């Protein structure tokens, strides 16, 4: 019972100084619960079955991420408890001299971890449950679902999962504590705080050399992920700059830790002003021992920044894209004249009669199935695409083929290009509300919006490569691809359509027929009904084996898929980002706090020689600010290039929405990181305050 009381007292005593630790634990539990309980909110939402499937996929991914998150939190907790134990060496020393066995000390720690665990779990779960009510509004908003009714949601499965995961973490901490207590020696415990730390100044020349080398390596890594982006083809290629970046980050901190003080010392006016010498010395003695963790924190911040801004950009762009890239209700298409590519379609699994019967347009095919599609349409257009084996990338690239081929060996250069009559395209453009074009009889042009392909095609267009089509020589009207698309989608994926004058097109090369239209109704439920009807046309219908049904891509489908994907991306980004952020900020905060208690003596000493309270607070503030800022600054520099890299990868989604996402990311970081900074400052101030 005695031990039990001791543990309780200890917790009470340290709860003020280590508020940041408890706060982080509680936050960790709450966030863990919220993201694992996301699905429970969708239960009372009015969503379609495809959305439900997406939500299920999202939950699977989130629980995978949760395992990763629990590793990070577990690491944080063990790291933190190591600090807390170290700080109490003297207390344990006294227990040991009084004759308490190490087993009993372990037991005290066991009780403490148990109490902390139970309290943080309880408070964290309560907070999590409250937060998840707010979250349900966010989820509903994201899936554009109407909340049928607001109800208090509680996910018992998420709750149990949280308890299990965190229990495992706490048990690991207990084992770790027992181990570290069993290892310590009494003399070290009693003298622990007195051990004078040797101050080693690194060789400044070595520091300068290493600093320069690291900067160069880092520059090279930046260069690799941005300018040389297109040469990155395999996983190893991407790993290389990452490893280079991480290692050079470490060495930059290592060399800076030796340099900053030297540089500051040479500015005597600055160094011998107020407590600057003290602050800088404090900082440099600290950074000397924390180069590794500063590196880790810097990298975690870097990942957080990139993850948050990339995910938010993706989400925003996707939502913006739908409006632009899915401007009408439905687009049905059917491949015609499949015989021309008999072997290809055969190997894709189509049967002989399907291939043979592929000479119906979309309209005709629907009639064959006794479905009057036109009766549902308010307005529609009917357009065709053509292909010929005589016009592939090999031909359109012309003399630039070899050059492009060496740079991009993975493209399929033998695929026939999609060809469209200019009048057909203009019909589509008018219907979509996008730009229309005109061509002379000896001209062609390419519309495309997939950025990487646009770049490749522009190489040939700039060179004015002519093409030969159906016996006509055509020269490019523009020296670059023009913006435009035929198929609706959620992303910019049009790799290129060749637009040619109407009169040269040979109808024999007809490849695909499109029927694009708007429904009469605008009611989402009714549209869903129509589309379900179309989807069910082939159910139990033997006709399917002879006649292929047109395939459709509809605004509603695209929207739901996009919403699901963007929700997934946003939640995973937020989840990981926030966890990374609180973990790194908490490690910094805890480090600083444990230092502050070691530093108490120093601050008392400063007071004794008559330093103003104001000056002391300023010194403390600066010291903590530098400590928090240093990893953040380098992380920000990393992020500039990281985001540039992410933008290139996410090109298909478009990146017009980058700035708002970066602003949101900045706000998140300022609130969380800044919040931790302020809490750390106030707690430190409290610790170094004289207590009479």
């Amino acid at each position, binding site marked *: 019972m005695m031990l039990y009381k001791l543990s309780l007292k200890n917790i009470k005593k340290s709860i003020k100084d280590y508020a940041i630790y408890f706060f982080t634990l509680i936050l960790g539990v709450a966030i863990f619960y919220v993201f694992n309980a996301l699905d429970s909110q969708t239960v009372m939402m009015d969503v379609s079955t495809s959305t439900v499937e997406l939500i299920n996929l999202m939950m699977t991914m989130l629980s995978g991420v949760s395992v990763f998150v629990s590793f990070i939190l577990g690491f944080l907790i063990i790291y933190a408890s190591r600090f807390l134990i170290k700080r109490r060496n003297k207390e344990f020393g006294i227990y040991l001299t009084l004759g308490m066995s190490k087993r009993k000390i372990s037991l005290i720690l066991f009780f403490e971890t148990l109490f902390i665990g139970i309290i943080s779990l309880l408070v964290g779960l309560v907070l999590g449950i409250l937060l998840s009510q707010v979250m349900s509004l966010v989820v509903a908003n994201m899936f554009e679902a109407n909340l049928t009714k607001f109800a208090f949601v509680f996910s018992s499965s998420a709750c149990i999962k949280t308890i299990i995961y965190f229990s495992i973490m706490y048990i690991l901490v207990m084992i770790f504590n027992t181990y570290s207590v069993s290892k310590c020696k009494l003399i070290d415990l009693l003298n622990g705080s007195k051990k*004078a730390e040797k101050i080693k100044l690194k060789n400044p020349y070595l520091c300068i050399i290493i600093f320069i080398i690291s900067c160069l390596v880092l520059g090279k890594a930046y260069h690799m992920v941005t300018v040389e982006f297109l040469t990155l083809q395999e996983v190893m290629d991407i790993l290389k700059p990452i490893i280079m970046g991480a290692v050079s980050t470490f060495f930059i901190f290592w060399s800076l830790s030796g340099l900053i003080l030297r540089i500051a010392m040479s500015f*005597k006016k600055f160094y011998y002003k107020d407590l600057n010498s003290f602050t800088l010395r*404090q900082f440099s003695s600290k950074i000397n021992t924390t180069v590794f963790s500063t590196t880790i924190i810097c990298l975690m911040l870097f990942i957080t920044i990139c993850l948050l801004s990339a995910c938010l950009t993706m989400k925003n762009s996707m939502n913006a894209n739908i409006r632009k890239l899915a401007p009408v209700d439905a687009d049905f298409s059917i491949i015609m004249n499949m015989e021309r590519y008999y072997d290809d379609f055969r190997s894709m699994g189509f049967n002989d009669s399907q291939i043979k019967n592929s000479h119906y347009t979309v309209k005709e095919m629907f009639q064959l199935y006794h479905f009057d599609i036109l009766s549902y349409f308010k307005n529609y257009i009917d357009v065709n695409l053509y292909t010929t084996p005589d016009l592939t990338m090999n031909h359109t690239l012309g003399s630039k083929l070899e050059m492009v081929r060496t740079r991009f060996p993975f493209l399929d250069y033998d695929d026939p290009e999609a060809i469209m009559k200019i009048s057909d395209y203009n019909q589509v453009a008018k219907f979509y509300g996008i730009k229309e074009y005109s061509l002379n009889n000896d001209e062609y042009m390419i519309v495309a919006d997939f950025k990487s392909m646009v770049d490749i095609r522009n190489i040939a267009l700039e060179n004015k490569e002519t093409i030969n089509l159906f016996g006509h020589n055509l020269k490019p009207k523009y020296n670059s691809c023009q913006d435009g698309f035929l198929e609706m989608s959620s992303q910019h994926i049009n790799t290129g359509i060749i637009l040619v004058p109407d009169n040269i097109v040979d109808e024999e090369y007809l490849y695909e027929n499109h029927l694009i239209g708007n429904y009469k109704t605008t009611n989402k439920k009714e549209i869903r009904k129509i589309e379900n009807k179309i989807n069910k046309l082939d159910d139990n219908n033997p006709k399917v084996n002879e006649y292929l049904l047109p395939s459709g891509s509809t605004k509603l489908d695209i929207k739901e898929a996009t919403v699901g994907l963007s929700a997934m991306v946003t939640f995973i980004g937020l989840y990981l980002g926030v966890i990374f952020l609180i973990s790194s900020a908490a490690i910094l905060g805890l480090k600083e706090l444990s230092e502050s208690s070691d530093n108490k003596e*120093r601050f008392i*000493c400063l007071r004794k020689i*008559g330093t103003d309270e104001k000056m002391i607070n300023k010194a403390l503030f600066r010291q903590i600010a530098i400590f928090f800022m240093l990893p953040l600054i380098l992380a920000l520099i990393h992020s500039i290039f990281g985001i540039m890299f992410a933008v290139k990868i996410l090109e298909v989604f478009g990146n017009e929405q980058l700035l708002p996402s970066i602003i949101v990311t900045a706000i998140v970081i300022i609130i969380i990181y800044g919040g931790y900074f302020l809490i750390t400052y106030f707690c430190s101030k409290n610790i170094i305050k004289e207590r009479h």
Partner: protein
Amino acid sequence: MEKILKVDKIEKYYGSRSSLTKAIDNLSFKVEKGEFLCLMGASGSGKTTLLNCISTIDKVTSGHILVEELDITKLKGNELNKFRRKELGFIFQDFNLLDTLTAYENIALALSIQSVSPSIIEQKIKKVAEELDIKDILNKYPYQMSGGQKQRVASARAIVTDPKLILADEPTGSLDSKSAKMLLEKFNYLDEHGATILMVTHDAFTASYARRVIFIKDGKIFKEIRKGECSRKEFFDKIIDVVTLLGGNLNDAL
């Protein structure tokens, strides 16, 4: 002679009404400019409390302490810090040097918190380092110094600001006898050059370097003796006599 410090009927109580401890009980004395005064007493006699009150680290319950014309019992907040920083120099038993700073920086800190310019700091430290014979260790860290060296650095920090009064709390408490002797000789040197030193100790040997010793018992002045013209050895014997009279219970009085 000019009075630097006047302690006037001060009292200091600790504890609550039910269990009151009188640490200082109606105590008065004066310190003249350029004097080297030692307060001597056993543990718990109230001498450290007295020093804390003079150094404004602690507050008196009643009475007044005047440094020159200033009543420091009336000072508040930053006035206290300003007073401490400008008028007082401290030397502590455990040195209280900042372990992260070199000797030079430790001494400089006392000046830089008074916004003294770096060039003047350099001059002043050069001078004080010569006086206290610590020129060779200015660039060393506390952990690289012996106890005696540390205490001389601490003394340098205390006098570099030209304080009106130097307060030394058991300055030889952590030193071996040789270092202690060397430090006290430096105190004598400073005293001869015009510094006013108020030292607290329970060690008769240390006290014998002072020019006047006030014995404190149970928060009151028990006796006061002056060195006058006698040698240090003779003064030491005189002190031992009073210690014997006190009951000989000054712990480790030799």
